[in-house]
């Protein structure tokens, strides 16, 4: 009798743990970060890697295609493009970062104030950003630049910075409105926490992640704005070397068909922007993805 039946239950199965451990670099934009680091260090250490003075006008060798001496050729004014690319990158990146900081600070303060203000003021402030957004950004920059006089690196970053905060401040406002009635904020306010204290200690840590992506993208759009403005001749003058002002000689380069003057600085610009974008996308990426039903 005993051998006839067997008690059935859950069959023992060996639990196979998936062995493949995630490598540290998987899913992270390693290549982009590496290239970005390379470009940034190259720009910071530009005096070490370059052999020539980027602003020296070598009138004997102007418009020379890339060769042994001039790795990337020279421009129509006889300047060595290889050195200019690194020196120019320093200024372009600097403008990108400074104007990002300016926009972010304005956006954080404006967004928080708007979210904490009474409904009518909030409404008014948000309408104001909408009106601001409706003036074509480029025109705004042209105006401000004209008002500040001859452009230099700081004034240009300032102008780009104060025209680029609107969309970030909208996101911050939404986030803060969601948070402002949380217990810990009310508690902090009851204990006499000042506006900046609450903003910094309680609100900011909560909206850092949704805003991070926009902040990184802001660096990107600031660099694009700088290069576009300098290219059109209303940003940095030709003597101040940046990736944009290097491209402002493009019209002459087109006439003489000197591709190196257009392609090389532009390639640096695009690669940098691409790395920044990948970084931004990584920050935004949704980790838990659902299985699709289709």
């Amino acid at each position: 009798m005993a051998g006839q039946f067997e008690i059935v239950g859950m069959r023992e199965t060996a639990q196979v743990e998936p062995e493949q451990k995630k490598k540290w670099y998987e899913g992270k934009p390693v290549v982009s970060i590496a290239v970005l680091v390379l470009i940034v260090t190259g720009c910071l250490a530009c005096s070490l890697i370059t052999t020539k003075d980027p602003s020296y006008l070598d009138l004997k060798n102007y418009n020379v295609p890339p060769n042994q001496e001039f790795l990337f050729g020279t421009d129509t004014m006889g300047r060595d493009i290889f050195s200019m690319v690194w020196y120019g990158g320093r200024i372009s990146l600097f403008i990108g970062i400074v104007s990002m900081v300016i926009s972010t600070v304005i956006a954080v303060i404006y967004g928080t104030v708007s979210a904490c203000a009474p409904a009518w003021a909030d409404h008014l402030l948000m309408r104001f950003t909408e009106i601001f957004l409706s003036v074509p950004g480029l025109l705004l920059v042209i105006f401000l630049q004209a008002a500040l006089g001859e452009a230099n690196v700081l004034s240009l970053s300032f102008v780009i910075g104060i025209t680029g905060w609107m969309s970030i401040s909208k996101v911050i406002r939404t986030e803060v409105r969601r948070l402002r009635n949380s217990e810990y904020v009310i508690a902090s306010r009851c204990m006499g926490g000042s506006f900046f204290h609450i903003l910094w200690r309680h609100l900011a840590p909560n909206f850092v992640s949704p805003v991070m992506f926009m902040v990184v993208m802001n660096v990107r759009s600031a660099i694009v704005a700088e290069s576009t403005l300098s290219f059109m001749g209303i940003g940095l003058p030709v003597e101040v070397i940046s990736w944009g002002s290097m491209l402002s000689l493009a019209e002459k380069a087109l006439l003489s068909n000197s591709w190196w003057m257009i392609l090389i600085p532009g390639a640096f610009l695009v690669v940098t922007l691409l790395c920044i974008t990948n970084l931004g996308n990584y920050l935004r990426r949704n980790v838990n993805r659902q299985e699709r039903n289709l």
Partner: protein
Amino acid sequence: MRHKIIYVILSIFLLSVMVFYMARLAPGDPLASYYGDRAEKMSPKERKWAEDKLGLNDPVTVQYVRWLDRAFHGDFGISYKYKMDVMEVIRERMGNTLLLGGIGFFLTFGLSLLLGVLCTWHEDRMLDRVICKVGTVTSCIPEFWLSLVLILIFAVNLKWLPSSGAYTIGKEDDTADRIWHLILPMTVVVLGHLWYYAYMVRNKLLEEVRADYVLLARVKGIGKRSIMFRHCLRNILPSYLSIMAVSVPHILGGTYIVEMVFSYPGLGTLSYESARYQDYNLLMVLCLMSGSLVILCNMAAQAISEKIDPGITHTE
């Protein structure tokens, strides 16, 4: 409804005040755009006479009220540079911009929908990845540089396409010639924006494809293609429409830069010139036009999204 109309009027009014004051406070000599080089050689007396004639000596507020009064009667003044009625100057250029921006807009609209569907269909497979990578790269290329590279390749080296202008001189009415000149700028306008919207469609569709009703439809035995086009696409279309409404000014702004690089005679080059050379009357009208367009498009987008989901109210 009444609130909305009041809001539109108020916004346009505020915009006009802002532009008016900013333009006048910015340094620069509007006489230079009216009289050209002669402005520099004028004696103080002549200068004063000229400024009086153009009404530039009054306080800015007085000037503004006068401008507003005339504007209500349909008179927006004359352009200092072209010495013509502002509306005339704009009318000449408007068609060109509408052609570039309008066709560019619809191409972007259609192509991004197509790309989005294609990516969703092949999610995480080769095609999707390739499109995504190419898209990310193109979205990083500044419009002016893309234009330069295209000019370098197709106009300077291959000599296939013209590098600037809207038509060959003397062939203003030749449609083929105009299209010929439109190809390069149009490519830049479309490529510059395409990816952003395609990515949006892709995201929305990927979300949609994970909805429960899709599973049900599959269980009922409805084909994939029909689910995708009959149900998923239809569901995202309204929100996509509202995004496109918001994007009108975005694309318009894109055409401005492209117009400048290609020296295409449109509103973009005109705005740039008028801001640069203090052509106040022209600048005002151009800013108001683009500003109103932005405001109206935002309203349209809101209206669409409220129609889709009556729960959304934009007062919050």
